[in-house]
């Protein structure tokens, strides 16, 4: 039971890495707290559901389409709102409200478009039989979601550390003003990161109908809270640190479900607080403690 909880938690946590990844990228690059992140995941889920229901598009293919579409939509959205937001006195805190407003708009629009009933994609689409890994049986959908998440993390790593626009992105992450002063087109770099962050959320959404059983337009806020736990436990502002956060989140949740299920949701929150108090910048972060 213990072994199953740990292994299951690892794979489950890998999926939650993907759930937090876009949120963390956006915070890292723009110091924006995207409260609508969970709702972008919800949109990804509905996109995958609609593609599957209308044309039987395989979820993996849908993920690719969503990657392109969400990035493309994200870039103009960035120019529409972010530069304006960042001119405010306390942009980091103001972003909470702005994106809360966006969250409301997205949820309302999705409710009008899709109704409030539960939607899902049949599990057989991702494989008929559970998969045996290291002696433990896991649902096929978990394995797929975990694998796609790993691919996304690897791709993001390659982008950030081994591609020219990624290098510029990291320059902006470490110091926006210096990056600007050294002639980097900060808006271009950021808009791409913004688009990628939305696309990562969208891809996480493709697997939501499998990982959550079903989706409604109201799932956003709960996902957001989970994503917060993941990225803070990992390292706020360091996208790659999200992996650690996701895995700790997944394993601790599964262990709690095994041994103290009624309290299962408490642990991630306590972990988050504990991590912040002991290492305020996250397990992998630099010190940012104030005073």
């Amino acid at each position, binding site marked *: *039971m213990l072994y*199953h*909880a740990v292994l*299951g*938690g690892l794979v*489950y946590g890998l999926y939650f890495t993907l759930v937090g990844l876009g949120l963390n990228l956006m915070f890292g690059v723009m110091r924006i707290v995207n409260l609508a992140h969970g709702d972008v995941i919800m949109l990804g889920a509905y996109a995958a559901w609609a593609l599957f229901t209308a044309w039987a598009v395989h979820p993996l293919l849908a993920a690719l389409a969503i990657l392109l579409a969400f990035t493309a939509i994200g870039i103009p959205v960035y120019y529409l709102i972010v530069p304006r937001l960042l001119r405010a006195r306390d942009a980091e805190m103001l972003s909470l409200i702005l994106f809360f407003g966006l969250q409301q708009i997205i*949820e*309302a629009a999705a*409710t009008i478009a*899709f*109704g*409030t*009933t*539960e*939607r*899902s994609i*049949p*599990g057989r689409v991702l494989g008929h*039989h*559970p998969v045996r890994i290291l002696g433990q*049986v*896991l*649902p*096929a*959908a*978990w394995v797929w979601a975990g694998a796609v998440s790993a691919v996304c993390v690897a791709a993001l790593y390659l982008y950030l550390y081994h591609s020219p626009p990624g290098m510029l992105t990291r320059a902006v992450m470490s110091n926006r003003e210096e990056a600007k002063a050294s002639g980097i087109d900060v808006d271009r770099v950021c808009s791409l990161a913004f688009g990628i962050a939305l696309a990562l959320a969208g891809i996480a959404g493709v697997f939501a109908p499998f*990982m*959550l*059983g*079903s989706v*409604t*337009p*109201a799932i956003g806020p*709960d996902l957001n809270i989970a994503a917060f736990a993941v990225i803070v436990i990992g390292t706020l502002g360091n996208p790659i640190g999200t992996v650690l956060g996701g895995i700790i989140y997944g394993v601790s949740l*599964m262990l709690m*479900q*095994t041994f103290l*299920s*009624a309290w*299962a*949701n408490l642990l991630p929150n306590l972990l988050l607080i504990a991590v912040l108090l002991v290492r305020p910048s996250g397990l992998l972060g630099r010190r940012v403690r104030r005073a």
Partner: protein
Amino acid sequence: MRRLEIKSCIRAAAALALLVCTAGTRAVAEPPAPAVIKIGSLHAASGAYASISMPVYDGLKLWIDRTNADGGAFVKAYGRKIKLQLISYDDQSNPGTAATLINQLITQDHVDLLVGDSGSVLTAVAVPIAREHKMMLFDPTGTGAKFFTHDNPYIALLADPASTIWPKYLADFLINQGVKDGLKKVAILYSTNDFTSTQHEALVGFIKASHAPIDIVFDQGVPTSTSNYTTLIGNIAAASPDAVIELGYVGNDIAFLRNLQDSGQTFRFIFALYPGIETDEIVKNVGAQGIDHVFSYVTAQALDYKPTVGMDVATYRQAFETAYRSQGVAFGFNAIAGYTVGLMIGQTLGAADSLDQLALRRALFAQSGHVRTLDGPFELDATGQQIGEITPLGQLIAHGNTVTNVVVYPPSLATGKPVYTTP
């Protein structure tokens, strides 16, 4: 007689005729009849309770539209048919907003009848407000046991049995028949919200009180936000129970049943709460095969009562689907509940001597035991809890892409025998 007269008057469809009609049938001293009867209600178009609230709202709306198309509801207090006007606000699943809006309906819109939102969390805030303003609260599905007390006459639960009634037949089955059939080790998994926690408490209470040789080998609550049951199913399997009972909301049940299917685990007896309540929605999300041989409650959809008032289930289902097909609202028990609320409002108006709130209460309680809707026999206890619309134990059997819910307990209602799967 008078009813017939009125009907013919309205058929004449002339305002003049209407005037003559009312003047002719009512004593001069009566106050003039209002142009419309205002029904105030709340719904949650978004947020956590939207998926249960919207079908109820749509069902009520459908009843009102139909009644108005028929010239209005017969109001005994005025001896004629009067059109109904629905004023419904969206509380966005936010209890604070629900409280404000319920008060708005009472104090500003001066509605004649007050209908609460669905589910206990959103109904709760309306209970003291209705009572304070001495307004009868027509409670569709807010089952919270705390709402119903002997000192509060201003509430009645119309379309959902009290939480403690729900698991009665399930418990009786386990005690009286399950034990004989070898279901001795029981695992219970429930979501920790009022609706399912109360059922869990009642179920365990029934089993313990019976002293039947039933061993509860697994008994755990999980947060209602739980969306993944894979590990929990593994843990349940480790306790090797004969029967597994899962009590959750729609989303919980979908996740549980899908995870169960994915995990490849089987148990002799599996009970889940929602397959019998929102059957369409569960089938759509889990697939007919996913709930084949799963036990659940049997609600109005499968019992097919012969109603003494209103449409039967099949007719209503067709009407509902025609009206709301494109809006992403699933037909199920909640849709029936909304329509039932409408029917009982109609019965109340047709029987009350005046629109005074206590007169409405008397008229509504007088229906208890005398009316059968598509939701079953309407019966209230003294505190206003619904005790007529019972939930027998059923077993879902898949035929291709559709399922039927076979009643297996109590024997007096049974339409089939339970079939246990071999693990």
